[in-house]
């Protein structure tokens, strides 16, 4: 792999037009990635999902070459037509369209940035891989006091021209004081057997609000990884919602630093799987100052041969008194062959805190099914009703009514 990856790297950036310092920085990340390789189950964070093995089994040999020079045709049929929105369209990892036509152009700044090494923290080797191969970095800044009129949808699409590719997407967001952004990540894949690696960096200034909805709902045979790194200032709010059910494998990671007092973070997730799918949500919420709050709710419904993992961590620094942290994960196992693994973790160094977590997994309640069937529903209907009731809890946590309806429609839940 090592020789090939170097050749792919040279080939990718030969004609990219990036400055030499940028390419050299990227090379450093490449070397770091080559040193560590894909994470495997020996690493605590990858204990339940050995991505090295998963890639090997599902894709085999990966090609790292990314063609950033030739453009792809946009398939407009994948666009969400239920709600008006701004768009950024990625096709095979290349930005094909950026459209903020609903917004005040002066209030949104979009620029390509270069980074210095010190800006990028050491997360894991997948982030290194992303830094090495993602093309120019777009930074989207929302100006002070501006609230986007329409949500921004980022389309992560691939077409059937590519196979066994590693695709790396990287964006930075900065929300200035009192601003707000609704961001929908929408996965739609025509391709199969690719590895899609997304890395977002969020900077939330005082009183800003970020709502990020990650939707992976259409069945596909790709392997996905998404990492959100969120830094929050005073009184800012981040709401993360994850609908995880489409890809063969998907791991969503959220690392959230609550740096300002009265800031809060919410993570809500639904995992519904069947047929050999394997998804994971891993969160790490770091309460670093006084009076911060976090809330996490993850629910999974697992069909035949599927496997879901939830690893959630609440860290409370010794200065972070009056922290309120909550974490709940629930899973319904529908089949003998389904599996649910959880590691809800608390690491607490302050005494005046309210932190708790709960985790439960089991089968559908036979008594409830009996109750519904005695009211005239058949077995299948009763089962569906119970499952829908189980996950609608999480959808109701979505604070934006437009998006809430969109998600409900997507998974076939009526109003």
């Amino acid at each position, binding site marked *: 792999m090592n020789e090939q990856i170097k050749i792919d790297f040279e080939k990718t950036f030969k004609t990219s037009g990036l400055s030499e310092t940028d390419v050299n920085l990227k090379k450093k990340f490449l070397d770091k990635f080559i040193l560590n390789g894909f994470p495997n189950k020996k690493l605590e964070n990858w204990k339940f999902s050995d991505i090295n093995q998963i890639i090997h089994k599902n894709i085999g040999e990966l090609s790292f070459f990314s063609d950033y020079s030739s453009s792809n045709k946009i398939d407009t049929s994948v666009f969400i037509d239920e709600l008006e929105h701004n768009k950024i369209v990625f096709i095979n990892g290349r930005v094909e369209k950026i459209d903020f036509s609903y917004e005040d152009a002066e209030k949104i700044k979009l620029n390509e940035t270069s980074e210095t090494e010190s800006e990028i923290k050491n997360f894991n080797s997948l982030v290194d891989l992303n830094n090495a191969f993602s093309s120019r970095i777009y930074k989207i800044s929302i100006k002070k006091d501006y609230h986007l009129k329409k949500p921004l949808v980022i389309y992560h699409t691939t077409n059937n021209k590519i196979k066994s590719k590693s695709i790396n997407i990287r964006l930075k967001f900065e929300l200035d004081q009192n601003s707000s952004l609704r961001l929908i990540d929408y996965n739609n894949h025509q391709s199969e057997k690719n590895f899609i690696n997304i890395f977002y960096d969020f900077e939330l200034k005082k009183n800003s609000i970020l709502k990020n909805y990650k939707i992976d709902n259409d069945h596909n045979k790709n392997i996905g990884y998404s990492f959100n790194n969120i830094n929050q200032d005073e009184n800012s709010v981040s709401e993360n919602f994850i609908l995880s059910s489409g890809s063969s494998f998907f791991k969503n990671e959220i690392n959230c630093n609550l740096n300002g007092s009265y800031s809060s973070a919410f993570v809500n997730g639904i995992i519904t799987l069947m047929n050999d799918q394997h998804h994971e949500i891993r969160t790490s919420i770091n309460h670093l100052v006084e009076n911060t709050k976090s809330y996490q709710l993850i629910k999974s419904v697992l069909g035949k041969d599927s496997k879901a993992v939830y690893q959630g961590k609440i860290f409370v620094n010794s200065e972070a008194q009056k922290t309120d942290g909550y974490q709940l994960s629930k899973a319904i196992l529908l089949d003998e062959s389904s599996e*649910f693994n959880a590691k*809800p973790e608390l*690491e607490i160094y302050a005494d005046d805190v309210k*932190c708790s977590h709960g*985790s*439960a997994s089991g089968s559908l309640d036979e008594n409830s099914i009996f109750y519904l069937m005695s009211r005239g529903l058949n077995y299948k209907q009763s089962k569906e009703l119970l499952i829908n009731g189980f996950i609608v809890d999480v959808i109701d946590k979505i604070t934006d009514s437009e998006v809430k309806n969109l998600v409900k429609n997507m998974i076939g839940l009526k109003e």
Partner: protein
Amino acid sequence: MKEEFKMDTREKDIEKLKDYKYGFSTDIENIKAPKGLNEDVIKFISDIKKEPEWMLEFRLNAFKRFKELKEPNWQKPKYPKIDYQDLYYYSAPKSMKDKPKSLDELDPKLLETYKKLGIPLQEQARLNGIAVDAVFDSVSVATTFKEELTKQGIIFCSMSEAIQKHGDLVKKYLGTVIPTTDHFFATLNSAVFTDGSFVYIPEGVRCPMELSTYFRINASETGQFERTLIIADKGSYVSYLEGCTAPMRDENQLHAANVELIALDDAEIKYSTVQNWYPGDENGKGGIYNFVTKRGLCKGKNSKISWTQVETGSAITWKYPSCILKGDNSIGEFYSIAITNNHQKADTGTKMIHLGKNTKSKIISKGISAGFSDMTYRGLVDINSKAKNSSNYTQCDSLLMGNKCGAHTVPYIKNKNFDSNIAHEATTSKISEEQLHYCQQRGLSSEEAVGLIVNGFCKEVLQQLPMEFAVEAQKLVGISLEGSVG
């Protein structure tokens, strides 16, 4: 005003620790194996204990494996590197060379030590209905109540005696739960263990009294490697108590015991521990390293193993008493109170491995940390795909006192069976001002109030202890936390 009060109680706390209640040592000359760990030392241990050939083989096998193993380092409490070649692996009180026939023949100094500890060795034993197998350093000193137990066919003796007299039983079961191929410390123990307790309860017998062993660590620089094996044959019941205190020492002492429990069909084993070893001084200097491997196997149908532990001592506690629920309908339970103060560190919890159908497990863990201490609950609930209709309930609560200490919860939950139910809850909080205020208003001092509230917090676990232990444990909970509030 409040600040002043804090200082006051902190000082009191330090004063108390200075005269650690059990901090004395007895002057007895020791026989020691040469320092260091090699095959000769293992042969020396085996030789001096007049062990049969198979036992030496067991040890050497373990040692061979030990040489290939690396010391684990994933645990939260880190400790300075231990030089395993710088330890004595065998030491015995000199007067033990010829085994005494009765209590009167014992070294009077030893008897005095036990008296200070309050072990009811003679008349007290009978009054309290406890049979005591007192262990001084590594060799059993006296076993009382033998007659009454022998009448029922119960074997309760030291491990060395068992190896000689009940070789078949030991050979059949030793190493079946903790094999010689286990982790670093367990394997070390398999290679060099010196003594311990052996219990065999025959079919259908309900052990008429609580069996109890007190451990003492005495000789300086001696790692103590105990090995306990308890076998409950079909339909039998036994309750076993283990309690520990140790003299004050400056150097860190390693303690890596192995405890194996085996419950056959319909049998029940209840294992209770009160651990109050020297925790080091107020600056975190000294204290015992308590790296113990405890594992129970519910081998037969409808068997039950229940662990109860009160951990207040040791500089570092690193142990996970576990249950392997192999038999159908078997039950595993784990009740734990862990208290850390000053610079103590604990990483403790349990593993419940469900293999049989309809197996049930319950975990109640209460952690209290104060001062500069650090406490971690780490547990595993693993439900195998064959463990149909099994269930687990876990509750771990932590109480923090002050913002210099830490409390962590790291549960691993694996469910591979759709018939099974797992529920896990954990909370972290502090003693509320309102509760303290309420108690103080009714005339309790702040320390009494804390003691009362903490005892209430731990009640679910304390209830599980046998009467004799519950009283001691309740006192310990109070003593361990005195002065930590303010």
